[in-house]
């Protein structure tokens, strides 16, 4: 017996589309405290649908935090690594929520609604942690409001996304550039329509009142039917983002990794006067990195999985952060942290797969880039 009683586990959470997922035959799994579909028809067909046609994801588990007030920008600038002062109205940016040690509390999207209101879209499993952290850091004339319960979020992704969504809204979608957003009605429902995603494809993310979740979900599936749309689960979301070389919190990035190590120098603006952890990142930039995130492909049969050791001349030098088959590339790929001296493309390393060591070769990220 322990002197410290273990707290009761938090109840599993469900999005407003939980029963819709079950009706569609979704295979449900626990993910970050949420009961979510991992697949419906299968990860491979869902993956292909998004690359070739369209897929629809329920990502209502994601968190939305509003930072608002006269000094909203100052608070956002203080806690994030990218430069939110460069955002125009209706523009979004990818950024890091930073610790004072220059590591990640989370990664997120910053949306600028007005000079006095920004939205941070954060990972489901981190939402409460992020909210508390930002509140703790708030020494500004700003309020932080957790809007997560007030919004459903759907991601319509794939080359046919625009064609499917356009007839359902009076908003002209084509002029919305990548990482910009607007507001307008979709099937009569007030939505934030953002040209963003986590798949490496064109697409839109819609945020709206959860009361309309089934209407928008089924409406999009029906409208996309002629294009071959499929409902897609977290399994395909992961293979798609892995091919696109996008980081997943808890895998490529966490509170032990810095943006420079993760290859996210582009979201780290040392030109900003101040942000949490900036001095650590500056020092790292000046002194050079010890390790770096790389992409690799297996050059003999074998699938690298999260956590597998990476070997160089028989010695462990790092670990796989994410790995698996790349359905659109017909090879097995992964990302890993390795010493900088071993991080050049073309370098050979071995992956320890159970009792075997299987050779892999470092290749440039991203693995997959869509033709534009």
């Amino acid at each position, binding site marked *: 017996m322990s002197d410290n009683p273990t707290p009761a586990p938090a109840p599993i959470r469900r999005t407003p589309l939980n029963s819709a997922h079950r009706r569609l035959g979704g*295979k449900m799994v626990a993910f970050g405290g949420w009961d979510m579909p991992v697949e419906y028809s*299968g*990860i*491979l067909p869902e993956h292909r649908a998004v690359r070739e046609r369209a897929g629809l994801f329920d990502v209502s588990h994601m968190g939305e935090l509003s930072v608002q007030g006269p000094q909203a920008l100052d608070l956002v600038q203080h806690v994030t690594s990218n430069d939110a002062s460069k955002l125009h109205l209706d523009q979004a940016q990818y950024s890091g929520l930073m610790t004072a040690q220059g590591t990640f509390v989370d990664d997120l999207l910053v949306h600028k609604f007005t000079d006095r209101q920004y939205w941070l879209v954060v990972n489901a499993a981190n939402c409460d942690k992020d909210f508390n952290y930002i509140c703790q850091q708030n020494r500004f004339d700003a309020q932080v409001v957790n809007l997560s319960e007030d919004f459903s979020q759907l991601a319509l992704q794939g080359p046919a996304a625009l064609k499917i969504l356009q007839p359902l809204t009076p908003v002209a979608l084509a002029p919305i550039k990548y990482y910009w957003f607007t507001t307008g009605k979709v099937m009569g429902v007030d939505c934030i329509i953002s040209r963003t995603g986590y798949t490496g494809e064109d697409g839109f993310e819609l945020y709206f009142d959860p009361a309309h979740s089934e209407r928008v979900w089924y409406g999009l599936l029906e409208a996309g039917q002629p294009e071959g749309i499929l409902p897609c689960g977290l399994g395909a979301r*992961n293979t798609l983002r892995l091919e696109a070389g996008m980081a997943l919190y808890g895998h490529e990035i966490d509170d032990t990794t810095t943006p420079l190590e993760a290859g996210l120098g582009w979201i780290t603006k040392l030109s900003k006067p101040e942000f949490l952890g900036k001095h650590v990142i500056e020092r790292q930039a000046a002194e050079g990195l010890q390790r770096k995130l790389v992409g690799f492909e297996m050059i003999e049969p*074998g*699938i690298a999985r999260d956590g597998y050791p990476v070997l160089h001349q028989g010695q462990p030098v790092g670990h796989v952060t994410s790995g*698996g088959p790349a*359905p659109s590339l017909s090879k097995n790929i992964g990302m890993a942290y390795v010493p900088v001296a071993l991080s050049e493309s073309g370098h050979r390393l071995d992956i320890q797969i159970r009792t075997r060591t299987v050779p892999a070769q470092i290749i440039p990220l991203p693995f997959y880039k869509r033709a534009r």
Partner: protein
Amino acid sequence: MAYPNTFRYTTEHEWVAPQAGKAARIGITDFAQHQLGDIVFVELPAVGTELVAGQAFGTVESVKAVSEVFAPVSGRVTAINTDLVKSPELLNSDPHGAAWMVEAELSDPAQAAKLMDSGAYETFVAEQDAAAH
């Protein structure tokens, strides 16, 4: 998919199909492939490997997960299904037929008779399904 009534089944969702003499084929069940999802990689033991009932002898990987396959019975591997290594998706389409994994010479053919028959296995997986919902 029906579970052939000439096969025997384990609680780990492997099957063993007796052939002539002491020979038998071994594979995983339709329930198992459905649980795993799209199968993309299969690792089988070398011919001559000794199988020990209850111990892992191979690996099946879906897009998302790695699963060990346990020997339903003891014996020595006499053949492996090289078609399956080349086309792991056979496990999704024909788990009880074309996707057999290994052929073995059983140490004790009576061992298989102690496993579940098709009726008992169907009841077992129905309970597993009920527990999952």
